[in-house]
């Protein structure tokens, strides 16, 4: 019975009341959607497969979506490089600090400015939103960051972009749509604004906090621009900067020249392994957070 019910439930998404037969149009839609998903997935599978394949197979360009003659040599090489661990450490620190700071600041701003009776809320909101449309630009911001002595420090990687206006907007929308009665009854019971925030609003806001947290974490993990302009010392490189010099710089190619043809191909596997190394953390947390960000985006975008 349970299997039958599950199958039935599986099929009830679009129009539950219609028991329409599976038609040629359906076949076409499933094919197109499936094909698009395949195009999205294939390059990632290809990278993974090359990073895990043997020397001969990579040389003959015969690796497609599954590894041939599995070899972990490229990963062993990557794991031995101190630089990439150093870069990973920097990126983890920036991601943790940046996400924590971003969540605290964005949540406070969004909560405070979602209060209906707060004097001045429109002015402060407008002040924040205005920066989405007009900015000083790259260079004036650089001059400010430099003036604060942040250039070539980890702080430069998250402090100048600590709050994202987009994240603020989706969070404020979410808070505004929480049922007012809950908060008001708490206030009538004598709860202060802060008690309302911590005891009532935050526990109800897990989806949006997870969503915004994920957006900040991904922003910092993937950041290339900030580290490109603010980081000058080699030992402070972030993961993306290090990855760029692996992929497009001269270091791996120079090593390959020394060790000849075999080196060239190893270079290819190494590049792919370094891509996997830098992307794996995202691929690992992604499935766990997906339900939150889809929900959060939908809630946030309704009026956003």
């Amino acid at each position, binding site marked *: 019975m349970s299997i039958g019910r599950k199958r039935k439930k*599986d*099929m*009830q*998404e*679009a*129009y539950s*009341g219609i028991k*329409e037969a599976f*038609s040629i149009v359906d076949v076409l*839609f*499933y094919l197109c959607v499936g094909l698009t*998903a395949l195009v999205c*997935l294939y*390059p*990632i599978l*290809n990278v993974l497969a090359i990073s895990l394949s043997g020397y001969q197979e990579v040389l003959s*360009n015969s690796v*497609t979506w599954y590894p041939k003659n599995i070899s972990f040599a490229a990963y062993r090489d990557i794991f031995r490089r101190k630089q990439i661990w150093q870069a990973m450490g920097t990126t983890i620190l920036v991601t943790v600090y940046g996400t924590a700071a971003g969540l605290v*600041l964005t949540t*406070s701003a969004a*909560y*405070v400015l979602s209060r209906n*009776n707060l004097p001045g809320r429109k002015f402060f909101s407008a002040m924040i939103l205005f*920066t989405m*449309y007009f*900015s000083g*630009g790259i*260079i*004036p*911001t*650089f*001059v*400010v960051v430099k003036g604060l002595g942040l250039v070539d420090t980890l702080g430069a990687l998250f402090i100048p972009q600590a*709050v994202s206006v987009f994240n603020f907007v989706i969070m404020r929308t979410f808070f505004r749509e929480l049922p*007012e*009665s809950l908060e*008001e*009854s708490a206030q009538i019971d*004598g709860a202060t*604004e802060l008690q309302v925030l911590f005891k009532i609003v935050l526990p109800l806001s897990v989806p949006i906090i997870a969503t915004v947290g994920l957006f900040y974490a*991904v922003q910092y*993990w*993937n*950041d*290339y*621009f900030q580290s490109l*302009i603010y980081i000058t010392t080699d030992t402070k490189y972030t993961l993306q900067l290090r*990855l760029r010099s692996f*992929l*497009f710089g001269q270091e791996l190619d120079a090593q390959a020249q020394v060790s000849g043809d075999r080196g060239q191909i190893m270079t290819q596997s190494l*590049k*792919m392994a370094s891509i996997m190394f*830098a*992307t794996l953390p995202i691929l690992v947390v*992604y499935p766990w957070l*997906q339900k939150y960000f*889809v929900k959060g985006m*939908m809630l946030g*975008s*309704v009026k956003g």
Partner: protein
Amino acid sequence: MAGKSSGEAADIYRHTPAGKGDGEASGVYRRTLAGRVWRYKWLYLMLTPVMAYFIIFKYAPMYGIVMAFQKYNPFKGIFDSQWVGLDVFKKVLSNHNFWVSVKNTIVLNLLVLIVNFPLTIIISLMLNEIRHIRFKKFTQSVLYLPHFISWVVVAGIARATLFTTNGGTVNMLLESFGGTAKPFLSDTVWWTVMYVFMNTWKEVGWGTIIYLAALTGIDESLYEAAYLDGATRMQRIVYITLPLIKSTVVTMLILQVSRVMSIGLDAPLLLGNDSVINVSEVIATYVYRLGIVRNDYSQATAIGLFQSVVNILILVLADRFAKLIGEDGII
């Protein structure tokens, strides 16, 4: 109903004159502005760090725009550098490279828009028709995934495996269908094709979220009634689903057209190389090279200001247009 009535109750309660307060704060505080501000003191305290952030990192740089009207000298700083009026702008506007970067920014943005925008809608419509929940969930997971991959990695995939001339997946596919290998990395036209492809690959799935959000909560009886009246699948899509997402479509289109002069530095800089610089140099990369690499702060600031002003103009126009055709504005 319960929510509304208790909301009204609370409202009355808040505006009750002195003497009927809850005892903790007296009614005088409730009535005057100072009193209301004092009542929310903890909230203002929470807001302070955020506003400090915006003032220091967003509003202070706006003052730095004066560099565009100075012969900026890093040793003298913003306050003591020599004023030169519009000289920097004249220099920028008479520079051929500047106009090339403006043209490239617009061309690349429009090409991505032309490919990405309709494709996003088509995929959303098809996803909306998929009735097998697990298939739908799985494909959605896969479609959203590229959005979370960094541009360094995307460029690495494009330049090291997907689009390489020898043994690149795309060229092997072309050859197996009887075509010839194309120089995606060194020819300006083929590079542009690759640029559009990688941008679409990264963002097309993510873009469907907003349309699927607009389609959730549709009254299913609409579809049922149409089905009973004998409407075919395609008719239901064209006459029910499309009108329901029309306003989202228009808003998204206006929003994206209004961003035609804004471009991130990551994609063009990482995908590009010296042999395609004539098409890959956009405003962001030009500002980066002028300002950060060559330390010409005045010119780089002037270009940034030009871009911001044009952006605002386009945005205001787009907003007016949206309201003119009866849609919600975007500002």
